[in-house]
């Protein structure tokens, strides 16, 4: 099958700093991917490489099978929305959209106009005079109205409040349902978007820590708590992400398979089992725990 985006052994260093290390990814078309990572994980670097704005130190990218560098056709499939570098300063909102419309073959002006109204942006305002949130909204409008077969949103909502972000998510899902395309959403606001993602890629310190279907991943991440000995009995051999003790109770987070049968046995032992939400799993996998007293004694 032809993937929408392929990354083959992508590495990138800036001097001595290794930003990306041997990234291999295959993104299928028409799915919503979440590219999750902490600040500095390498998300933007990877996305800039995918869009040929940055050159990898080694490795190759394929967009629908073609290398994107200096390739009109391949690049024509992509629209990337970024925090900065998306617009010229001395240009009015209306003109900025006008310019964008001439660069994206699938541009839908009705959608752009509708979003402009929903976001209440003034088309006569100069870009440099917009607030941070409004600049983000403009970027989002371009990203959605472009209807590009591969649309990338790289943390597109700086300065946007929760209501504004919700508007974005709603508009995104709505338009995706009517016009399916490959969407890559790069973010660290995971709990807000986790329900929207079909596939998840967790990037940490330049490597892919985890990738796969979001529900499948969730089905491998469990909280188990109960009496300490009983818990420990049941988790031998399983990959443990975190442990916390309160008196005789032990609460663990594991990343492993648990069959229905195992679940029943555990529950019969009075253990509580629930799925770990993506946000929390992410924190465990990227080492974002707070140091607690118990850790020091371990």
């Amino acid at each position, binding site marked *: 099958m032809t993937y929408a985006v392929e990354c083959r052994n992508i590495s990138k260093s800036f001097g001595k700093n290794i930003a990306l290390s041997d990234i291999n990814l295959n993104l299928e078309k028409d799915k919503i991917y979440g590219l999750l990572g902490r600040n500095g994980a390498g998300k933007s670097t990877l996305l800039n490489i995918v869009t040929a*704005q940055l*050159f990898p130190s080694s490795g190759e990218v394929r967009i629908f099978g073609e290398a994107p560098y*200096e390739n009109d056709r391949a*690049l024509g499939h992509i629209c990337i929305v970024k925090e900065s570098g998306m617009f010229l300063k001395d240009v009015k909102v209306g003109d900025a959209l006008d310019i964008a419309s001439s660069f994206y073959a699938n541009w839908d002006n009705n959608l752009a106009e509708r979003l402009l109204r929903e976001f209440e942006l003034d088309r006569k305002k100069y870009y440099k005079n917009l607030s941070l949130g409004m600049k983000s909204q403009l970027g989002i409008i371009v990203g959605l109205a472009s209807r590009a077969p591969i649309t990338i949103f790289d943390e597109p909502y700086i300065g946007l409040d929760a209501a504004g972000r919700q508007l974005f998510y709603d508009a995104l899902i709505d338009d995706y349902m009517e016009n399916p395309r490959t969407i890559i959403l790069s973010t660290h606001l995971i709990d807000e978007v986790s329900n929207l993602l079909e596939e998840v890629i967790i990037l940490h310190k330049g490597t892919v820590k985890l990738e796969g279907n979001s529900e499948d991943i969730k089905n491998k991440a469990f909280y188990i708590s109960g009496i300490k000995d009983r818990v420990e009995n049941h988790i031998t051999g399983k990959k443990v992400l975190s442990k916390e003790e309160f008196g005789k109770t032990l609460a663990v987070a594991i990343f492993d398979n648990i069959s229905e049968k195992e679940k029943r046995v555990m529950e019969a032992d009075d253990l509580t089992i629930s799925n770990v939400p993506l946000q929390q799993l992410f924190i465990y996998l990227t080492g974002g725990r707070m140091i607690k007293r118990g850790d020091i004694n371990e």
Partner: protein
Amino acid sequence: MNKIKSQLKMHYINSKLSFIIFWSIMLSISVLGILISIFLRSRGYHGVIVTNNFIAVVVFGAISGLVAYNETLPYMLNMGITRKSFVFGFIAYNIILSIVLSILFALLTLLEGLVYNLLGFTSQQMDHLFFSAFSKGEILERVLLYFAITLVATAFFTLVGSIYYKKGMMFLFGLGALIMLLMFIPGVPQAVFEALKPMILSLTGDKGYLLLMLYSMIFLLACYAIIYPLARTSQIKR
């Protein structure tokens, strides 16, 4: 071809604000110059006219090129334009900008000449005006001269801008220092001058303006021949 048109539209929209500001200033300078000339004349200083200067246009063109390259390259890369297409689009922008600037400046000086004439200044006094308003044949030649100079200046400073974009300030200074040093080596400046002499002399001849166009175009192409590989290896900056 589509993308070149889209880029030109982008350059047009991007230039609008600075264009309006620049020409407003130029107009004000012309008006101010006229007022000062009138004042001086009334004080008995005949033979003095304060006019606008073409250098301003050259500087504007040069800076526009340099700044536009640095601003629009990352913007266009983000929009999915190939670097090759960008350079071609920029050449078109360079040429069109020079045409527009030269025509506008010619019109401005024509206007100045008209006003001075109406105010009773003599044509002797107006000799200071780089161009007198009345010989139509000369107007075209002068526009061509403006065009050539603006074209060359813009292309050169775009080149400077492209070196700055790719290599940064330090490298640019280093390069500039190197060139200056070369000029201090005995014999080098003279050699350069000797090499350029035939070219400069040919301009004073019959086909002067035609050759001027030719040389400017060659210079333009030479600049962009260097800009092209620089752009092709340029990336988005952090």
